[in-house]
């Protein structure tokens, strides 16, 4: 490879609205263009709303390595990785983590296959890539395990509309009306997928209703990506007799999400696996204290700005949440630390880290 490339395109298995990896890809494109590269996004699948932002993978230009580099956004197994590997240009990989197959394959066998393929493709990506850029140190460690000789950490470029949107007035009024009846508002934000373990949040919430706050409400926000799992959750809350206290809000707009963050008293996360967990940072930005199960990249994201639990025992989670709700000093300290932590994950900081990692890779390639 000689000289600086002219093009720096991105390859992504699929691109969609309201998706953290997709948003990161769009921001990466912006950063690449600001670096002076011609940069386009080539996706194997795209949702209708993203047609204007991406081109079909089949149209990926095949230039030589001195003119064109590629960045692959790895979050799942896909034939797009094979197209990326076979391309003659220089390469870097951005790794968003891939959920371990055992956590999802029982509910979604096809997704299990895809994530298994993704993990299988990582060493192949390592063999052809100049560097692996991870959105967390945890992910960087996984990249090194997969064989990446060089890694860098550049945090996720998050959708600022989830931070800065004005709250949707209707939803805000609705939540405020509910709050006036008393009780605290628990919140969890994340796609309804098995590894997010909504059932563990529900179990803790059921304990809290029983022991601490019978008027509390639980809001579960996120796309219902696994219908069987969602049905099981509905049946679970009916079986427990707490259906009237649990709100399945589904996928919401940024403005509605802001309304939920503003109304929430605590964010409770019991996920079994997270490569970064953007909702934690969003909650911190909105001044919502966080109680989370310490697994994968979650401790790195939370640090000391939330309560990290080493167990998901329902009463322990409920007690920790209640402590955050009850102890005003603790709450305010967590809110302050959370806001500070959220500032460190600003778009500018993430972009600077990404650009630095990329420049280093280009320099190494000569």
């Amino acid at each position, binding site marked *: 490879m000689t000289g600086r490339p002219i093009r720096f395109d991105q390859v992504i298995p699929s691109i969609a609205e309201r998706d953290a990896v997709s948003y990161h890809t769009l921001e990466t494109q912006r950063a690449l263009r600001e670096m002076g590269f011609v940069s386009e996004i080539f996706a194997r699948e795209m949702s209708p709303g993203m047609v204007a932002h991406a081109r079909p993978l089949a149209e990926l230009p095949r230039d030589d390595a001195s003119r064109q580099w590629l960045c692959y956004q790895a979050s799942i197994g896909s034939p797009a990785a094979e197209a990326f590997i076979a391309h003659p240009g220089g390469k870097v990989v951005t790794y968003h983590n891939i959920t371990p197959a055992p956590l999802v394959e029982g509910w979604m066998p096809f997704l299990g296959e895809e994530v298994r393929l993704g993990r299988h493709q990582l060493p192949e990506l390592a063999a052809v890539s100049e560097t692996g850029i991870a959105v967390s140190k945890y992910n960087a460690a996984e990249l090194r395990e997969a064989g990446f000789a060089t890694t860098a950490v550049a945090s996720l470029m998050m959708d600022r509309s989830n931070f800065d949107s004005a709250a949707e007035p209707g939803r805000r009024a609705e939540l405020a009306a509910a709050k006036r009846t008393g009780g605290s508002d628990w919140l969890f934000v994340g796609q309804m997928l098995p590894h997010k373990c909504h059932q563990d949040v529900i*179990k803790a919430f059921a304990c809290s209703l029983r022991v601490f706050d019978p008027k509390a409400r639980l809001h579960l926000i996120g796309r219902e990506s696994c219908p069987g799992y969602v049905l099981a959750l509905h049946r679970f809350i009916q079986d*427990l007799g707490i259906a009237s206290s649990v709100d399945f809000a589904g996928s919401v707009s940024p403005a509605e999400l802001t309304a939920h963050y503003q109304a929430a008293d605590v964010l409770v996360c019991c996920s079994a696996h997270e490569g970064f967990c953007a909702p934690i940072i969003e909650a911190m930005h909105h001044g919502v204290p966080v109680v989370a199960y310490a697994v994968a990249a979650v401790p790195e994201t939370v640090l000391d700005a939330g309560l990290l639990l080493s167990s998901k025992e329902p009463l322990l989670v409920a007690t920790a949440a209640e402590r955050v709700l009850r102890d005003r000093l603790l709450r305010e300290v967590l809110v302050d630390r959370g806001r500070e932590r959220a500032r460190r994950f600003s778009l500018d900081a993430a972009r600077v880290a990404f650009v630095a990692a990329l420049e280093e890779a280009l320099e190494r390639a000569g």
Partner: protein
Amino acid sequence: MNGPHPDGAGAARHEAANRRPDAVADEKAGLGGAEESIDTASVVAEAFAESARLRESGALPSGFEADLERRFLAIARDPETLAKEAAAGASSRSGSAGNQGSGLRRLLPRVAQRSRRAAGSFAHSTRRAAAPRVRSIERSSVERAGRLAETVVTRGYVAVDHANRLATDRSSGRLFSRLARVSPAGRTRPPDRPRPSWGGEGPLAGETTGSDPANGPRNAQRELEDWAIERLGRAGGGPIVHVECGDGALVRRLAGAGFDSAGADPAGDAVRGSPAVTTTDSVVRAGALEFLGSCSRSSLGGLVLSGITERLSPGRARALTHLAATRLRPGGVVVVISAHPDNGAGDVVSADLSPGRPLHPVTWCHLLSRYGLAELTVNDPVGQPSHRYAVAARVPGAGR
């Protein structure tokens, strides 16, 4: 399940929690350095101890937590069946006859939830019901304002273009009146010749820009022009105009192919000195924006844009595309011919829409589609020594 607190302490804690958010805000000033001394690990350890104490004290019925786990596992023991039931529930909601029971089971909690919301805030529901209409009105108003602003801006660019050249050749008047006389169906393009044959022979051979088609390989420019003529042959009739036509060679080729063609170019000397221009009313001395701004709406059957396409500021690019889209008839075809911005090894084009630069084909596609043109096609012969490309698009409607 939602029973009363097991003890008075729980109620007291609950009361304290409800008092928390705002009532204590003004106490914050007195917190001092205590904030920094809080160790979350210690707090978690205390939470562990507290939860153990609650268990021992019987705050929860014996085996309550294990029962939660058992109940969920019982429900989730067969994910495959759940997935099928969820799918059946979805289909029953959409009108399918089968498995309505499971569909209802899934639907009922949502209905109940919505009912609670509606009962909780009727006024809010009313506002929400009206919200789509309000949003629609807002959206259409914004769109109208946007269109108006765009038209004003485009007219500004036209005026600037006009002022830059100071005065238009007298022949423009004759050309405009000639365009106005053209019948809606297009009067001159022969219906039996939709796609002219350009093989390098025939009466027009040798009239291309700088090529020797009879004795050498067809050059890239001529191939692009051939492609443009083929695309223009798909238009639904009406005059074809080449803006920034240079010496008018393509205008003449188009005329030779049976199109009612004309050209415009701001360089009067080039137009007058052109051996290719044989009729004074075929080419007008006018800038691209100036010329298009003077044409009536939906008056042109086809449009070839070149020259100006290589030195556009973002605003001028939008104005040019706006004018092209509005001056073409339904079915009309526009062909953009431009140098490729990647042309020239090592010269990185940092941004497509930087002033005075050629655009990428994909940028033209974006612009043209943004202004309502469709059937976008790109002819991008990568590897040519002088890398040029063409993009064609058509106004939706009649045509071939």
